[in-house]
């Protein structure tokens, strides 16, 4: 029996997956992102962001290992002993991840593939804009129809909540209510904590700060501190550097993991899918001084992608090894026939999905 939340892929599906990963890798390579290969086995670390949800194994020494559950942490940890590069460094990765606790439902697997990049050693609006443009290019390459890149600014939520000057636990409860856009709970909590005035007004406004670009102007009136203002200015500077045509949306009430994400975060949505296709953001200071990146979920991307990865190159069924070699030299996909005569060859061509049969006398197209 196949373990829950795992899949095997054959035929068209397997080919589409391979093509998708290859094209994305080519795209990232064209932007100067260098490949890395990371081990799937990691030492167990209770401080790892997925420590509770990762698959664990016991090593022969008795030490606990965990299966890779996230690329960013794995990559940064691999970089640290090598010493961080002085300037900007670009990395890309692709491979499977495992999460023990992820419910295996529609779009949520326990074994899944991510393809992504990290831009380390630089923190600037230009760096964020580079990642956003690259993420957008990846969605275009996949032919995702009507995709939207949604930008969030968890630091803005953090700075607004901190203006209430509450103990950490209270702030955390407010954060969770903001993230769920649970306005009734939020109002109740603010009452209970005795938060009033402009701070209350700003915190209550956070959940509804989503929509188009007009949201940024609205957010400015709720910027309570110098830091909150700087957060918004950074975002404006990023937007100024994006090429035209990138479809953007904003949610300044997005407050997931704001102790980890230091600046801009982003996700991509497609109308056909109830989940984000990609996610990323800036996490300066979380593990290294300056870093940001994003990852695409292969399974989700393929569900939303057009036919871009489904197409298969024409296949040629050749009657002899010599003919097959000649076709391959021309860059064609050539299979050697095992049939003994022409009629059998046509049968075989249909079975192996070849569009043409090639005999010494010439090439013939096969009716499907």
């Amino acid at each position, binding site marked *: 029996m196949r373990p829950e939340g795992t899949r095997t892929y054959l035929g068209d599906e397997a080919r589409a997956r391979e093509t998708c990963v290859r094209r994305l890798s080519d795209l990232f390579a064209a932007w100067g992102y260098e490949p890395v290969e990371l081990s799937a086995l990691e030492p167990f670390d209770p401080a790892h962001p997925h420590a509770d949800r990762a698959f664990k194994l016991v090593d022969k020494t008795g030490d606990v290992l965990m299966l890779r559950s996230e690329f960013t942490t794995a990559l940064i940890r691999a970089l640290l002993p090598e010493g961080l590069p002085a300037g900007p460094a670009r990395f890309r990765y692709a491979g499977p991840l495992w999460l023990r606790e992820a419910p295996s439902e529609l779009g949520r697997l326990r074994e899944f593939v991510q393809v992504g990049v990290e831009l380390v050693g630089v923190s600037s609006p230009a760096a964020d804009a580079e990642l956003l443009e690259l993420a957008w290019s990846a969605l275009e390459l996949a032919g995702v129809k009507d995709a939207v890149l949604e930008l969030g600014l968890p630091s803005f939520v953090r700075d607004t909540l901190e203006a209430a000057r509450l103990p950490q636990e209270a702030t955390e409860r407010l954060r969770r209510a903001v993230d769920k856009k649970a306005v009734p709970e939020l109002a109740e909590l603010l009452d209970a904590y005795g938060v009033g005035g402009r701070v209350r007004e700003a915190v209550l406004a956070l959940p509804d700060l989503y929509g188009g670009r007009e949201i940024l102007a609205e957010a400015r009136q709720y910027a309570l501190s110098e830091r909150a203002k700087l957060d918004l200015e950074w975002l404006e500077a990023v937007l100024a550097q994006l090429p035209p045509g990138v479809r953007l949306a904003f949610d300044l009430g997005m407050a997931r993991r704001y102790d980890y994400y230091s600046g801009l975060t982003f996700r991509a949505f497609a109308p056909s899918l*109830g989940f984000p296709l990609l996610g990323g953001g800036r996490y300066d200071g979380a593990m290294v001084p300056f870093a940001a990146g994003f990852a695409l979920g292969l399974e989700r991307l393929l569900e939303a992608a057009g036919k871009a990865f489904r197409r298969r190159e024409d296949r040629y069924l050749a009657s002899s090894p010599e003919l097959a070699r000649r076709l391959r030299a021309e860059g064609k996909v050539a299979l050697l026939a095992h049939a003994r005569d022409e009629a059998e060859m046509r049968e075989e061509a249909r079975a192996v999905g070849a569009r043409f049969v090639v005999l010494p006398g010439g090439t013939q197209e096969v009716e499907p």
Partner: protein
Amino acid sequence: MKGYGLTVALPKGRLLAEALATLRGAGLDLPAPDDERAMFFKKGDLALLLLRNADVPTYVDLGIADLGVVGKDNLVEAGRELYEPVDLGFGACRVSLIRQPGDQGPIRRLASKYPRIAELWLEQKGLSADVIKLHGNVELAALVGLADAVVDVVETGTTLKKAGLEEREVILKSSARLVVNKTALKLKAGRIRPLIERLRQGGRSSTR
């Protein structure tokens, strides 16, 4: 769902009539679920799914439905990542800890149809007990000694008194919530955002 402008998930049972009235009052022209055996209705580009209470969060989280109505009790129990922007106010009840009168012994076994809420309460109190999942008549478990206490819905408390049990602590106050799929809120903001605004202003009173 594909092919529909908006898909709405509503719970069968005591919340249905008010949920329909409230959403219609806020301008959502929902079909009438007039066939008792059907689970799926459509009108224009709207689709309506009738589900068990506890299934509403699942359908909305996984993006089959864009939005839905569900009691806060079932929402907490589901533990899913949803937006819950409006308290619709109706369907008020509380989820409470219930024991036999005078029973002060330790709670070693706790029965509930809300095992997650029960676990969260135990964790919050720093207690540890085995949680037994039951599907109905939960009070019985406390009466016959299946469990030392139960966590269950209390609406008025009269049933409880009749059964000879005591409500010890209110764990959660519940009422119906509008829940919205995280992607749908963003991609269908043009329709869902105004709906949220109207529901917050008290839905039915602002019918146009």
